[in-house]
Structure formats: C-alpha cells, structure tokens
C-alpha cells in the first residue's frame, strides 16, 4: 500500500501543556484506519493539527506529510487547497457543524466551487447528486432546506456529502456517530464503508468505541495521553493485544457471545498534561508495572508485521496480565 499521509513526531501543546507527545501514524492510499482512545487523548487534535485547524495559540511540532508535501507550517493558501480538496473532515455533532443560517445546498456548493470550480446550475446539480448519493430522499427539494430542518443522522449525511464534494483522497471522520442513535450509527458507518469502496478513498475513523472501529477499519491505532501506544491490523488488536491499555479497553467491551461477565474497568484516571509520569504514561494504572517503566517513555516495539506496541513487555505475549475472559 503506498503512503498517503505520514505523521512523524507530531507534538501539540496548549500554553505549554502538551496535548500530543510525539505521534507517529501512516495512512496508506485507500486504507481505513481506526484511531481509538478515550476523550482527551489527542485523537482529534492530531488531525486538527495536521490540517492547521487548531487555534493559533497551539504550539505544533513534528511533521505531517501528504505524499511528501509538508503540511505543518505550510502557507495558508496551500493548506486551504488540501482542506476539503485532498483531506476532508467530518465531526462529532453534525447539527452544530453545519451553519444554521445557510441552506445545505449552498454549503455543499461552496465546497464544489472551491475545489471543482462548479458554479450556479452545475454546482446545484452536483450538490443534488451528492445528497442523493449519501441517501437523502427528495434531494432536489432538500437542497433548499436549512440544517435545523434535518435530523441528526441526515445532517451527518449532509456533512458527508459536503466532504465528498472536493473528491478527497482521505476522509477523517471524527466520532461521526457518537451523537447519533444506535440504529442511525450503523447506517452512517455502512454509508462511510460503501463510499470508501466506491471512491477508493482512505478513511480515518476517530472513535472511543473499539466496536465501531472494528467493523469499518483494516488497521487500528490506540492512543493514550497524547501518544500512539499500539498499532496493528484490526484482527490482531482483538486477537493478540500487547499493550496493557489496549487489553484494558478490550476488557471493558461486553462479550457478544458466552456467559455474562462483569465488565473490567481500568483503575485510576488519565494523568493530567501537567502531571505526566516520567516514564510510561500508563504506568500508574498498569497491573504489570515494573520499576524500569518509570525511567523513560517506552518506544514502540515491533511485535509482528504491522503490529507495534509501546510497552517494555510487548514482546512477552504471556507475561502481561491476561485479558479477562
């Protein structure tokens, strides 16, 4: 798979407090990658930083390359062509992510005009086709509706239509289904899945829900406290998780089959950015904690092809605490 986006050593700090502490992530052409972790771990910040969408007070370091072209520190004009044109992004709360005072047709047409030079009737026709494509019934009439006249799920479809307008090579979906009902969630995920197949578009699905990611993505990266702690093909993450945090996350998932069991929770809380432990950020909560864990943050160790985990014991399959069965 050829590389599309390569993120290396990405750091972000807000007024001196680190939010990202060196993120390395690669996304291949047409690949679907899940980015998992609890809120505040830096999943969204990673991609907002990559696209230059963070407020100017954010201090950003490291590198994000889009087919070799550096995005960090790129001039605004270059970033504007990338945003929506090559990398599109949709967000968690579709209802407030669309401008309440403009008709959805106009909001889609704006992207069409920016990235494909379509204006007037041709933009309208294309916007209608896109609404059709994302499954909005009666698209030609709904072009003139305002966001508040749509349901949450429909608004997310509109957001997706708008994201597709620029024919992006990568769609970053930031918790796209978190604000939606479970049935609607499944529909939106199906839609993303089929659109990706149809257009050969890469997808980064940001979620706190491993279940959501497992259905849609080929590869999963788990984030904790501003770093990627484990990365592997989806089936491997579930079959053979090596980082204790990943194990903890899996243990917190209810089993689909078999007897009911008490869901495991990870003791303690995420360390605050101003009180990061000197070594591994997960050490204070880790059952397999050893003195050397506190010396320095562990580097990702290769476990298997495409599988790496940032844990000193990652290569000892049986050593770490077992996943509660």
């Amino acid at each position, binding site marked *: 798979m050829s590389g599309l986006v390569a993120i290396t050593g990405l750091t972000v700090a807000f007024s001196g407090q680190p939010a990202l502490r060196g993120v390395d992530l690669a996304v291949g052409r047409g690949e679907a990658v899940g980015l998992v972790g609890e809120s505040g771990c830096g999943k969204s910040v990673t991609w907002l930083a990559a696209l230059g969408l963070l407020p100017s007070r954010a201090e950003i370091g490291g590198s994000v390359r889009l087919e070799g072209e550096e995005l960090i520190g790129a001039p605004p004009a270059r970033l504007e062509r990338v945003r929506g044109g090559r990398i599109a992004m949709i967000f968690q709360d579709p209802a*407030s*992510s669309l401008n309440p005072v403009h008709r959805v047709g106009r909001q889609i047409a704006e992207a069409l005009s920016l990235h494909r030079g379509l204006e007037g009737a041709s933009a309208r026709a294309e916007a209608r086709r896109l609404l059709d494509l994302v499954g909005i019934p009666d698209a030609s009439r709904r072009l003139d509706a305002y966001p508040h006249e749509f349901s949450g799920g429909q608004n997310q479809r509109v957001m997706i239509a708008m994201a597709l307008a620029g024919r992006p090579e990568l769609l970053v979906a930031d918790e796209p289904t978190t604000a939606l009902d479970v049935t609607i969630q499944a529909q939106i995920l199906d839609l993303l899945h089929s659109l990706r197949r149809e257009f050969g578009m890469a997808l980064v699905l940001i979620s706190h829900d491993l279940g959501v990611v497992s259905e849609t993505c080929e590869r999963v990266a788990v984030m904790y406290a501003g770093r990627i702690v484990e990365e592997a093909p989806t089936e491997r993450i579930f079959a053979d998780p090596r980082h204790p945090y990943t194990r903890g996350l899996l243990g917190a998932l209810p089993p689909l089959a078999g007897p009911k069991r008490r869901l495991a929770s990870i003791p303690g809380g995420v360390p605050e950015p101003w009180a990061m432990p000197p070594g591994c950020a997960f050490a204070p909560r880790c059952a397999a904690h050893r003195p050397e864990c506190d010396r320095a943050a562990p580097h990702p160790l290769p476990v298997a092809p495409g599988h790496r985990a940032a844990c000193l014991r990652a290569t000892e399959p049986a050593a770490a605490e077992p996943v509660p069965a």
Partner: protein
Amino acid sequence: MVRFLLSRLLRAAVTIVLVVTFAFVVLRLSGDPAQIIMGADAPPEAVDAFRTAWGLDQPVWVQYFHYFGAIASGDLGRSMRDGREAIVLVAERIPATLALTVPALLIKLLLGIPAGIYAALHRNSAVDRALMVAAVAGFTVPSFVLGLLLVLVFAVQLGWLPSGGQESWRHAILPVATLGIGGAAVLARFTRSAMLEVLGQPYIRTASAKGLTWRAVVWSHALPNAAIPTVTIVGFMVGSLIAGAVVVESVFSWPGVGRLMVVAVANRDLAVVQCILLLVAATMVVANLTVDVLYGVLDPRLRTGIRRAGAG
C-alpha cells in the same frame, strides 16, 4: 407571518397603553400641577379657576378616560403654559433632536461594529485590549461627565468648538461625539462578544475544514450569525433616537425634545410630557417590531418557528 405581525402589533399597543397610563398617574401623584404652574404665592381663587379650566378638579379616573378619549380622536392636549397644541410643540423640537441622534447613531454603527469585529478577530492582541479598555470607559462614564469633559478640553482649553447652543453645525459636534462615543463603546463590546461566541462554534471549524479562506469564513459564516444578537442592541439604539439625548441636550443647551421634556416635567406641563412619552414609547415599540421581523430574516430557525406558529 401575518398572524405573527398581528400578535406583535397587539403587544405593542398594550405596551404603549401601559406607558401612557403610568406617565399619566405618576405625573398627577407627584405634585399639584395647578399650584406649580400658577406659582406658590398665586391667589387660591386663581389656582382653583386654573384647575377647573384644565379639568384637574375632576377625579383622576375621569381625567384618565377623557384623556384616552381625546387621544383616540387624535387630540394630544395643549400645553398648560402657552396653550399651544402639545403635538406641535413636540414636533417642532424633533428635527433638532434627530440632528444629534442620527449622526450619533451612524458613529455608533460605523465605529462600534467594526471595532468589535476587529477586536474579536484579534482576541487578546494589544489592539483588542486597548479597544476593550476604551469600550469599558466609554460605557461606564455617564454621558454628562463625558460631555463636560469634552467641553472642558475642546471648548474651554483649546477653544476649538462652542460649548453649547444651536447656531451652527459646529455646535452639534460635541453633543454628537458625546452620544456617539458612549454608544459605539457599548456596541463594540457587544459585537465582540457576539463574534467570539460564533467563532467558537463547530460550523466555523467546518467552514475552515472545507478549505475556505479565513476571510471567507468570517464574512460568509461568522458575520451573518453574529448579526443576529447584534441586531437587538442596534434596534434599541434606533428606538432611542427620540429620547436618547435628554441628558446631552441639557448639558449642551440643545433645544431638542429631551430638553423640552426636562422643562415640561419641571413645570408639570402634563400634556407635553405625556405627548413626549407617547412618542418615545411608539418609537421604541416600532424599533422592537422591526427587530423581531429582522430576526426572522436573519435566522431561518425562527422563520420556521413563525411559519409553524402561523399554521398551528
């Protein structure tokens, strides 16, 4: 829409009636107009004769119904001072007041709104801080203090401008500045906070993520939303075009409606005071009505609300 307007008109009418009633009662409870107008040492017979002539000897509620009957037939009463029609007296003064308040309104809009937008877009910059300090000063300093300060500097010390009167356009500069600066400060602060609120909304991030330039994001996504709350305060400013200059007219001896009202209240010239208050209430109500309609134009969410209310 028609139904919406009708309900708003009805509410407006009730507001006006309440204002007029309140003024009517308070003016009659706060001292005997006959005694004040005739003077403390006037002979009692003369005062009684004055009372009878103006109907002040009748119970207040009888006077009240007469008054409303007269208003309904378009008669707003006569000045007890010189017997001229109150409406004429007031109408004569309106142009002078507007000569101050309209330019002042323009200053408020042209200075206040851009300053607020600029401050919001350059939040925490030196310019933002300076603007906001100026804005706080501008709306905490009472207009008579600001007016006297301007007189002190530009009339007394520098001698550039006259300190009062209405002989030429130069006489209008200081009162207009006094009115405009304070209002611009209020509007700047208000616009700034409206803009900041909007700039923090997710749809602004969506607009940027789409690839729009920051300028386009501000113009076509932030400003139309920030205009919605700002319209309220602008409407209030438009509504006070008639009554907003009472203090400033007094400070600068400017013969406008405000000055007339101060004199009429002091003299208990009932019909004139009531006429002015009616006019003020009517302007305020019309301004509010316009704001309500503008809300509908600016905010589609309210438009549907109105359509639904109309249909339901």
